[in-house]
């Protein structure tokens, strides 16, 4: 008997005592084509009473973020949203991917302060209540780690890849906050100011540089996520939301914004989050996230049977709205238009769908997104013609899934010729913020 079934039986109150009893209980599990009288049990007794804070069903506890076993510490790293186990477009707050550089701080909202200073007329300090008094904005935006897709750098590809491990460093939420432009106006930005240097209240005092212009355009100082306070992992009580840009610039636990005339060139915009190109140059400030899509069903490690399936997936782009998603059912030889489920909001994830009847023959399925700026996802070969094989970020090539004759779905990406030099550090541990590359 597997653990999941055991837990399920235990929680249903059927496993009264002995293991022998348990085994016989499983023996009687109804086939999907019939039903058992156990379905009537809940109609004979009272259910759970009212409770102040809701929890998901006890039968859904296996839907969790993926934490790579290769990570060397859980105090700096990333874990992944379980994309193929979720529906719709909003990521439940508890399953929003995490990325931090010094653990998740606990910040007391009564002690919380945000200070804006530097090239301003009036240095100002705001409490959380102050921030909530300003006119508020609620918008849905995706946040994606620049390291999303890091498994694409692995060569040969990992056959056991899942949608989670392929693209789960993207989550999509409704964010509420005050436009940073309002706070900057309150402080009065001085002539000559061009940059903002936001800082977090975590052990890494995490710092980045953000052009003032972007802040005036659409950046939010957010205090709510999906209707309630931010989760600690997402920056409680206050974070930056920088729509369409790499997650690492969206500073969490925001405590200070310095208005400056130059960027800081912090560790996380030089040693990390810079990109090695195919020509050997290194790019700084690669902020905008290029279009991405991923088929979440059917996807790696799932199994399907012959017949009807609604292919489902997610697409998003930092350049604006998704204009089109195409799917291929024949390994990229031909492409068909998927339907997009509205509303099609800019800089937010969108669900795409395609009705498919699988005839039982092995095949490779793929999706490819195009955004309103006209950018389309590249093939891995096209991607690596521009980006270095030893780059770590911004992988957005098409993900293929191979459906075998047995219906089992595996990574359909092909090995590419050539290989990187092995690390001098040997095989211990893996790179990439999620420990996957």
């Amino acid at each position: 008997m597997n653990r999941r079934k055991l837990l399920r039986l235990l929680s249903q109150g059927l496993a009264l005592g002995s293991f022998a009893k348990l085994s016989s209980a499983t023996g009687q599990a109804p086939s999907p084509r019939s039903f058992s009288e156990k379905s009537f049990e809940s109609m004979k007794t009272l259910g759970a009473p009212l409770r102040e804070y809701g929890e998901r069903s006890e039968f859904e506890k296996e839907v969790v973020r993926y934490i790579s076993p290769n990570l060397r510490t859980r105090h700096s790293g990333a874990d992944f949203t379980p994309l193929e186990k979720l529906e719709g477009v909003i990521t439940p707050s508890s399953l929003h991917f995490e990325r931090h550089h010094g653990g998740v701080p606990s910040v007391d909202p009564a002690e919380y302060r945000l200070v804006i200073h530097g090239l301003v007329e009036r240095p100002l300090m705001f409490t959380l209540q102050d921030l909530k008094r300003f006119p508020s904005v609620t918008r849905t935006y995706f946040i994606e780690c620049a390291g999303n897709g890091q498994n694409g750098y692995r060569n040969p590809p990992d056959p056991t890849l899942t949608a989670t491990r392929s693209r789960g460093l993207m989550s999509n939420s409704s964010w509420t906050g005050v436009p940073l432009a309002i706070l900057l106006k309150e402080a009065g930005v001085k002539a000559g100011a061009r940059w903002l240097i936001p800082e977090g209240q975590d052990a890494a005092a995490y710092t980045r540089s953000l052009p003032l212009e972007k802040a005036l355009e659409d950046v939010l100082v957010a205090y709510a996520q999906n209707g309630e306070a931010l989760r600690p992992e997402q920056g409680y009580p206050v974070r930056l939301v920088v729509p369409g840009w790499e997650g690492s610039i969206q500073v969490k636990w925001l405590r200070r914004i310095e208005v400056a005339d130059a960027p800081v060139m912090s560790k996380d915009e030089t040693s990390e989050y810079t990109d090695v190109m195919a020509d050997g140059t290194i790019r700084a400030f690669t902020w905008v996230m290029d279009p991405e899509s991923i088929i979440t069903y059917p996807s790696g490690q799932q199994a399907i049977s012959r017949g009807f399936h609604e292919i489902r997936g997610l697409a998003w782009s930092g350049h604006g709205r998704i204009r089109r998603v195409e799917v291929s059912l024949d390994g990229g030889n031909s492409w068909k238009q998927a339907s997009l489920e509205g509303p099609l909001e800019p800089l937010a994830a969108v669900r795409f769908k395609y009705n498919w009847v699988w005839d039982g023959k092995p095949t490779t399925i793929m999706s490819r997104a195009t955004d309103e700026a006209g950018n389309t996802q590249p093939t891995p070969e096209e991607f690596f013609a521009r980006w270095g094989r030893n780059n770590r970020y911004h992988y957005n090539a098409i993900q293929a899934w191979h459906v075998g004759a047995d219906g089992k779905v595996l990574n359909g990406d092909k090995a590419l010729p050539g290989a990187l030099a092995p690390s001098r550090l040997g095989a211990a541990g893996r790179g990439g913020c999620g420990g996957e590359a």
Partner: protein
Amino acid sequence: MGLAVALSALVLAQGRYQIGQPLSEEEVRRWNVRPSVLATGAGLPPGEGTVDQGAQVYAAQCAACHGGSGEGGAFNRLVAEPFPVTKETNPRDFAIGNYWPYPTTLFDYIRRAMPFATPGILSDDEVYAVVAYLLYQNGIIDGSQPMNAATLPEVEMPARALLQLDPTTQKKFPWITLP
């Protein structure tokens, strides 16, 4: 009603809401416990440190995680050859000597975030010293002068030659130049 309108017009004069506590420069300084150090050197504090002093700080505070002399251990390799990475360099081998474009980032980052589990314990002199030690170990300085607010920004990092501004960013913000 009329009063409320008049009041909001008053409050919103110059588009401001009059929310937030004005701070003095002294109060800002007290809040700013880990001040940023820019690539220009702006923000570097007084004080200095030598390679020898840095070797001691390193052995006591850093070696357990980064290896006896920066070669990497439980965590990042800090020492690399003093020439930039190539297309073949494994990204796990990116380190100060072959990848970091600015010397000031070392001061900013180490003062802000290291040692990993106990950040904030080093004095400014100790940070200068360990920065000197790491630059020396990477073959970038010869150790003849201490590192301070005048010498550190002058250090040339080999990987700076490879660093370029992202073209998408350049298009959107034509005024940006890298330091």
